[in-house]
């Protein structure tokens, strides 16, 4: 069952990832990215990251991607016009090369990690309580410092978008 779920959602993630790269219209790419994020959330759940799976859906697929889609709509971004028309041969060659490259990476990872343990659903549960406890003890400083980052993003967006300097 775990393997089946993994295969289904891994295939969806890869398919949507390819779709993000090859679609010409930004809105199609954005929807593909949401597909990747959704299927990754399922995989996080399998790996016992319930908190991070929820954050993935709410923060990533929810907040960040809505921002993207909003900007695409606002700017009325149309389909990309290709700067150069690649011949069919070059296109297929590119696809073959990409697949070969990714296959090589997969082979290296598989060879470097010969005896990794199998993932079973429920083998490890990183509950929200565990995450929270660590976040406010060991990772207190990075957590607090992140607030400065958010403040900068806020100020930065205002500086760039307001009417007059």
């Amino acid at each position, binding site marked *: 069952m775990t393997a089946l779920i993994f295969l289904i959602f891994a295939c969806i993630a890869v398919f949507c990832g390819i779709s993000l790269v090859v679609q010409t219209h930004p809105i199609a790419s954005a929807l593909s990215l949401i597909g990747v994020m959704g299927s990754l959330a399922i995989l996080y759940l399998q790996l016992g990251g319930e908190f991070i799976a929820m954050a993935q859906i709410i923060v990533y697929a929810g907040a960040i991607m809505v921002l993207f889609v909003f900007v695409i709509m606002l700017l009325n971004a149309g389909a990309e016009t290709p700067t150069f028309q690649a011949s069919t041969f070059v296109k297929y060659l590119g696809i073959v090369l990409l697949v070969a490259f990714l296959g090589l990476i997969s082979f290296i990872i598989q060879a470097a990690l010969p005896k990794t343990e199998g993932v079973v659903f429920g083998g490890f549960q990183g509950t929200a309580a565990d995450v929270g406890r660590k976040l406010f003890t060991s990772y207190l400083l990075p957590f607090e*410092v992140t607030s400065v980052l958010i403040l900068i993003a806020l100020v930065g967006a205002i500086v760039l978008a307001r009417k007059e300097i």
Partner: protein
Amino acid sequence: MPANFAPSAADYLRILPEIIMTVAGVLIMLLEGWLGENKKRNLSVQTFVAFAAALVSAVAANGNPGLSFSNMLIVDGFATFFRVLVIAVGILSLFSATQYLKREHAESSEYYALLLFSVTGQCIMATANELIMIFIGLEISSIATYVLAGYLRDDKRNNEAALKYFLLGSFATAFLLYGIAWIYGTTGSTNLSTIRIALLTPGSETNVILAGTAAALMFVGFAFKVSAAPFQIWAPDVYQGAPAPVTLFMSAGPKAAAFAVFLRVFMTAFGPITSRWEPFVWSSALLTMIIGNFAALMQTNIKRLLAYSSIANAGYVMVAIAADSQIGVAAAMFYLAAYAFMNIGAFAVVTHFSRQGEKFVNVEDLAGLGWKQPVTAALFSIFLLSLIGVPLTGGFFGKFYIFKAALDANLVWLTVLGLLNSAVAAYYYLRILVVMYMKEPGEATLSLQPVGVGIAATLWISAVGTLVLGIFPSVVLNFATASSALVK
């Protein structure tokens, strides 16, 4: 689980500079609202006070060294050196920015706040002892600088600079993060000392291969940030397009902080696998010097010329890193300090000369500056001579120590090629001097106003810094040598 999760007073003292600058940044934005429009000139004074307080507390924190916040933070000589350096860069860029912003009618509290936050991020980078802290510090510094680069948002060049800086910067961050993820997977930790211990433990060969891959990915990320070849491609466009005082800032501050984490990560965490990464740093150093110097020969725009010069200088520092020794670390620290002063000085002259809308940014526009404003030209000459590496300037001793460290590490060919590169570099710096003193003043020079207070302060402080480092190098070098023992 650590029992003492409530931080002690000593912990707070160790991050006091960051706290001061963050609080000041927020207060300055509030003050602008309370004080109203006509009090704007005080904003730079308040920012200066905040920087000065942060500088004092950074020096004071050195008397209280140690780890803090569950080993997230380390205060040692190395951290103090870079903290003081980036805060000093912040102060100098503040002086020249105030005048520039008035000239462009674009002064606002947000500029000062973002400057303070950016320096905060660099201080965090300097003190970080954890990959995750390094990452967050780097992002704070970078995101603030992206916004500053596009600050005059109606200017096309500013937009373009911000966009390129942002896209390539985020791309580099992704590589850095992927490297962090793999090092976490290999060693089970992101603490630099723990990673070192894990890599020192004799284990399987796979661990070394995986750690080497992680180091390579992180190298890509850092090389982007310090504009080292082959990832220097963004630097010329960004340096040319950004407002002059922002270019001044980002060619010194973020660069020094990025080198600080580069040194700390590669010397401490990846020390046990030196043989894996040294060839990369070696070849990148050589390539960076060659690309920077030869591309600079062909530039007519002075900001672009200084951008390539900045790339070349990153190459010299990479030589010191390739030496992989304590002397090398000390030489890199010394050179980054010297480079900060001479580079800030040169960009301050550009800020002054370019006028509103940055009309005059060509080398030829400087014709006759030596006769129209002898003092400015003399100070500019000091910076250029230091960039060439003439004795009695900081640049000379910086290069001297770097190449000495490289020779001690038996990098003879790298030293020879580096010295040849410095000779090539002399040509394009001397060309500026020739234009300044040997040519008749043109329209650009004749219409030049006297130097304002802010830029004059930047120029004089940088000149004094350059000369002090050149005449009494031992003051800084002794401190750098004492704190270059990164491995704890």
